[in-house]
């Protein structure tokens, strides 16, 4: 619809080509808060283990050092065997963040590969790949992770990383496929095709660069999923319990009855670290989302007319001439089994930056 009112548009969402500082100032406050919080964690992960006051695994033989409440010598207290919780926390942040980023990289690469391939090839391949993604999505990941890791030796991090990445791609693949489908039909791709660029060149140099922000948002979501799932797995004791990750600290706290003994300094810091890390990623992502979708922006920043906040209406959709598509009966048949074939996926854009639910 076209309202008769001229709506003063807030252009902060548009990229400011000026200097970087100006661009930072124009970021939504949520994105700023998320970025600062995340930077703190990255900093802790980089220098943390170097500045840690003690060796996180060092078990003090002195029984007086067991289960000490926070003090000047041990800022976050000690565990039952006299280990320093702060040192464990600093190592844990590094390991957990490392794992999250690695899983995020691998799984996002898989998402891009599957999503772009499905959309670009189209037809039967698209339907088959989406069927596989939907099956992966509907099967609960955590129990599958648990039996997979149950069989694998619990020595290194490699198994955990690979298994988490292997189950973390379908959500992103769906989102990226949807975006690719819309980009595929744009004029510049048609132009590239006309000039005789090869299929893979079009994908790598025309389509994927136009999806960078979506891929970045997806990466953030996958890191969030990986951190949540790995912490839960470590808490059950399914990862290497002799290295220090945030989940492992809580595993030891739980198994050595920190709760019953009232040692809150043992399980609260790692849990808070997970929650804050997750919050920073969610904030970052919803900030990124607000850049692209001004309607989600905090209404207080929005234009007011006569004391009433204006609700921006949906932008006029840009119509592209759809390329003639051959739909084989088999393709249509496969497609008819997915929910989205029946329901207009209104929430797609919004949900693409919803936190993936892995942290639960």
């Amino acid at each position, binding site marked *: 619809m076209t309202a008769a009112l001229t709506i003063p548009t807030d252009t902060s969402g548009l990229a400011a080509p000026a200097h970087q500082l100006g661009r930072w100032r124009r970021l939504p406050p949520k994105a700023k808060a998320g970025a600062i919080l995340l930077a703190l964690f990255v900093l802790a992960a980089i220098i943390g283990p170097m500045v840690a006051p003690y060796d996180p695994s060092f078990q003090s033989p002195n029984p007086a050092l067991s289960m000490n409440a926070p003090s000047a010598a041990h800022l976050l207290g000690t565990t039952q065997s006299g280990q320093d919780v702060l040192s464990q926390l600093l190592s844990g942040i590094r390991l957990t963040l490392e794992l999250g980023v690695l899983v995020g990289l691998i799984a996002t690469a898989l998402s891009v590969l599957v999503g772009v391939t499905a959309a670009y090839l189209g037809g039967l391949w698209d339907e088959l790949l989406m069927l596989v993604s939907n099956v992966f999505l*509907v099967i609960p990941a955590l129990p599958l992770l648990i039996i997979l890791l149950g069989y694998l030796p619990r020595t290194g991090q490699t198994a955990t990383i690979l298994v988490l990445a292997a189950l973390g791609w379908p959500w992103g693949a769906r989102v990226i496929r949807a975006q690719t489908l819309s980009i595929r039909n744009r004029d510049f791709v048609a132009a590239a095709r006309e000039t005789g660029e090869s299929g893979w060149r079009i994908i790598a140099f025309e389509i994927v660069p136009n999806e960078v922000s979506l891929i970045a948002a997806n990466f953030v979501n996958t890191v969030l999923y990986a951190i949540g799932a790995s912490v839960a797995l470590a*808490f059950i004791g399914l990862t290497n319990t002799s290295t220090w990750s945030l989940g492992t600290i809580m595993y030891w706290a739980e198994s050595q009855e920190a709760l019953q003994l009232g040692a809150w300094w043992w*399980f609260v810091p790692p849990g808070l670290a997970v929650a804050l890390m997750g919050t920073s990623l969610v904030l970052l992502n919803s900030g990124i989302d607000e850049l692209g979708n001004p309607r989600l922006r905090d209404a207080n920043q929005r234009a007011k007319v006569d004391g009433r906040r204006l609700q921006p209406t949906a932008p006029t959709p840009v119509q592209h001439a759809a390329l003639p598509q051959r739909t084989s009966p088999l393709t249509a048949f496969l497609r008819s089994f997915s929910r989205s074939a029946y329901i207009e996926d209104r929430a797609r854009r919004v*949900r693409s930056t919803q936190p993936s639910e892995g942290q639960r």
Partner: protein
Amino acid sequence: MPFILRRLAFYIVAAWAALTANFFLPRLMPGNAVEAIMSKFPNLTPATYHALEAMLGVGHPGSLWSQYGSYLNDVVHFNFGISVSDYPAPVSTLLAQTIPWTLALVGSATVIAFFVGTLFGIFAGWRNGGWLDRLLPGLMFVQAMPYFFLALVLLWLLAVHVLHIFPIAQGYAGGLVPGWDWTFISSAIGHSILPAFTIVITSLAGWMLQMRNVMITTIGEDYVLAGQAKGLPSRRVIFNYAARNAFLPQLQGFGLALGFVVSGAIVMEIVFSYPGIGLLLLGAVQSNDYPLMQAIFLVITFAVLIANLIVDLVIVAFDPRVRTREAA
């Protein structure tokens, strides 16, 4: 073929994929699961050894196809083998003891959280910028918490150290015999309040945020403006015009997120020593009880698939277009 039958066919494919993965995993994994089990439980009889081998496919009795056939046959008859950690209890008996607890707790808490969260989301989306929006950063923080961590903190605050209003652990007071009498039921309810509260608090935020965002997008639609322009009461515009349409993607999201929510809730059971399937899973993991682990995976998967089918039924009830439209 109507929507619901097609969805049923999809869930059957998904169930088959889960069953097949469950069958091949122990056969593909490095190491000998049976040896691992036997070394932990030296008093198992040779008969058990062979039964385990057959179940986990280590000794390769018969061809892969015949193993697969008998495996499917066993699953259909709820025969999941013998638990090794709780030898000689059949896995199906252990499951039957724990499933009702989890279903009652996790099921009802998830449904409550979904509806309350959706309702909050409707209002937060309608009054975008109102007081509910001010809760958003806090909600994001709560949502980013692992379930089990909130459980630990709540237990510490409300049961163990600061206040002593709630029981610490278990599903019912010690000494009671499970039955349908009032003392037992009231005790069970008292013990489930804190776990249920944990689930509601952590998952409510997610449903609320999602519904809020979809509502904000929906409110921009022409038909909502038309409803307002006609002078319809706000309540009618909110619920019958905007929320009804925003609810469909919300339901879809519910179906997809269910697996994660249920998994998180199950890990949370461990903290409360709640006698559900999560605690059983922890025991199975700690003692390498592979038959039990695999059966629990199947049970959770099937529960999520059935819940998704119910979600589809609700979608059919809510969206007349689904009933009439052929696949687009």
